[in-house]
C-alpha cells in the first residue's frame, strides 16, 4: 500500500476538525487552548505535505513562521488565562459571562 500525499492531507483535515470541534464543545480554557494548538499543527502538516508534493521549499519555511507565531500566542494566551484564574479559581468558559446583552 502506497501512502500518498492525500493521506497526509486527510489526516491533517481530521486533526484540524478535531481541534475546531474541541474548541467549540470543551469548557476548560486550557483544553480550548490546546485545541487551537492542534489546529495550528494540522495546518503545519498540510504545509509540509504540499511542500513535498510540489517539491517546493516555501511550504516548509512557512511551518517555521507558524511555529514562532504559535509560541507567541501561547505566551499571551497563558498569561490571560492565569490572570483570569487568579481572580476566579477553577473558572470555565461558562463562568465568563459578565458581558451579555
Amino acid at each position, binding site marked *: 500500500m502506497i501512502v500518498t500525499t492525500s493521506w497526509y492531507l486527510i489526516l491533517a483535515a481530521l486533526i484540524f476538525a478535531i481541534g475546531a470541534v474541541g474548541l467549540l464543545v470543551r469548557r476548560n480554557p486550557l483544553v480550548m487552548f490546546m485545541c*487551537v494548538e492542534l489546529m495550528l499543527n494540522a495546518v503545519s502538516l498540510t504545509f509540509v505535505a*504540499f511542500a513535498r508534493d510540489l517539491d*517546493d521549499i516555501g511550504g516548509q519555511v*512557512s511551518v517555521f513562521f507558524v511555529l514562532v507565531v504559535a509560541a507567541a500566542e501561547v505566551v499571551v494566551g497563558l498569561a490571560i488565562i492565569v490572570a483570569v484564574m487568579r481572580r476566579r479559581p477553577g473558572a470555565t468558559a461558562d463562568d465568563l459571562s*459578565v458581558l451579555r446583552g
Partner: protein
Amino acid sequence: MLAQVEPIVTPEIAWTGLVPLIILGGGAVLILTVWSLAGRYLPSWSSSAVAAAIALGGTAGSIHLWLRVTDDDRGPFGVAANALGVDGFSVLLTMLISVATALCAVLAMAYLEREKLDRPEYPVLLLLSASGGVVMAMANDLIVLFVGLEILSISVYVLAAFHARREQSQEAGMKYFVLGAFSSAFFLYGIALTYGATGSTNLIDIREYLAAVVLVDDALLLAGFAFLLVGLGFKVSAVPFHAWTPDVYQGAPSPVVAFMASAVKVAGFAALLRVFVLTFDQYADDWQPIVYAIAVATLLLGAILATVQTDVKRMLAYSSISHAGFMLVGVEAASAQGTEAVVFYLIAYSFLVIGSFAVVGIVSGEGDSHTSVSDFAGLSRRRPWLAFLFTVLLLAQAGVPLTTGFFAKFLTITAAVDERSWALAIVAMISAVIAAFLYLRIMVSMWLADVDTERSAALPIPVTTGVVLVLTVAFTMVFGIWPEPIVDLARDAVPALIRG
C-alpha cells in the same frame, strides 16, 4: 539525496519602503527600553505622549513614499523579494493606521491616569500592534500577511485585558483571544490550501498562476477561499463571525475599543481587498456570491440587533458590525470604484469611531463602568458641548448629509449600483435607516431625558481627550462639506501587484 549545496541568495532590500514600519516598531522598542530604565523619573503620561509622536512620525515617514508611488515616472514597487508591496493603497492605509494610533495613544493618556494603569506597556503594545497592521496593509505574501495579522492581534489581546482589576476587561481579553486564535487557525488553513492549489504563497505568483492556468479541479482553491474569508471575516467582525464583537467592545477599555474599531478594521479590510479583489480577481464569480451573502447578513443583523441594546458600548459594537457590512458592499463590487469607496469609508469611519469612543470614555467615569444609555441621560445639561460633539458624530455615523459618513455610504452604494448589485444597494439603504433609530435613541437620551442627579456634578473632560474629540469632529464636518481631497486620496490609493 544530498544535492550540491547552493549558496543562499539574500534579496536586496529597498529600506526606504520600510521606513514607516521601522519607525513604529523601533519606537515601541525605544519606549520599552527607556521607560523600563528611567520610567520612575518621567511623568506617567509621557510614554503615551511619546507613542503618539512616534505614530505621527510614522505618518510623516510615509509621505515621501506617497509622493513616490503616485508619481507616474516611478510608481509602486516591491520590497524584500516582493514580500511587501509599496503602492498607493498600502501607503495611504499605513498613514491612516498611524494617525488612528496617534489619536488612540492621546486618548489613552487621560484614561490610563484616571484608571491608575499608567504603565509603559500600553503604548508599547499599541505601537507594536500598529506595526502589525502596517505589515498587513503592505503584505504581498500570504505568510507575511499572517505574521502581520498575528503581530496586530496578539498585542490587541493583551490590550483588551489591560484593565486587570476589572472582571469585564479580563473576560473581554479572554474571549477575544480564544476566538481570535480560532480565526487565525482558519486563516492559516486557508493559506495552506491556497498554497497547495497554486504552488506559492506570494500574491503576485498566485495571480500570475491563476491567470495562466485553468484549474481542472479547483475544489482545493475554493476551500482555500472559504477559509481565508472566515479568518478575515472574524477580524472585520462580519456576520456570522461577529459573536465576539459586542462582548469585547463592552468589556475592553474605551481607548482600546477605539483602536480595535479603527486601525484593526483598516488592516482587516486592507487584507480583504488585496487578497480577494486584487489577487483572486479571476475567480471573482466564485467568491462574490459568498461576500454578497455575508454583506447582507452583516448589514441587517448589525443594524437590527443594535436597536435592542441598552449599553452604549454594545450599541456602538453592533453599529460597527453594520458599518463593516457597508464596507463589504464595496468589496463585493470587486471594482476600482468599490476599492475607492472602501478606502474612503475606512478613513471616514476611523475618525468617527475614535471620536465616539472618546465621548464614551469620558462619560463612563472612573472605573469605566457607566456606559448604559441611562448614563447618557441629560448629558446636554451637564456638558452641552460634549453632547453637541457626540451628536455630530452619531449623525455622521447615521449617514446624514454634510458629514463624511454620508459620502462614505453614498460611495459604497454607488459602487454597488454600478456593478448592478441593485438588491444589495437596497439592503444597504434599509440597514442605514434601521441603524439611524439606534443613533436617535442615544441622542434622545442625551437631549430629552431628565438629568441623573446623582452623577450630575462631576464629569471632568481631560484636555487631551477634548483635543482628540474636537479634531475628529472637525475632520468629519470639514470633509463632510468638502470631500474632494479625501476622495482624491482614495482614488490615488490604487492597489497594485508589482515586482521589484
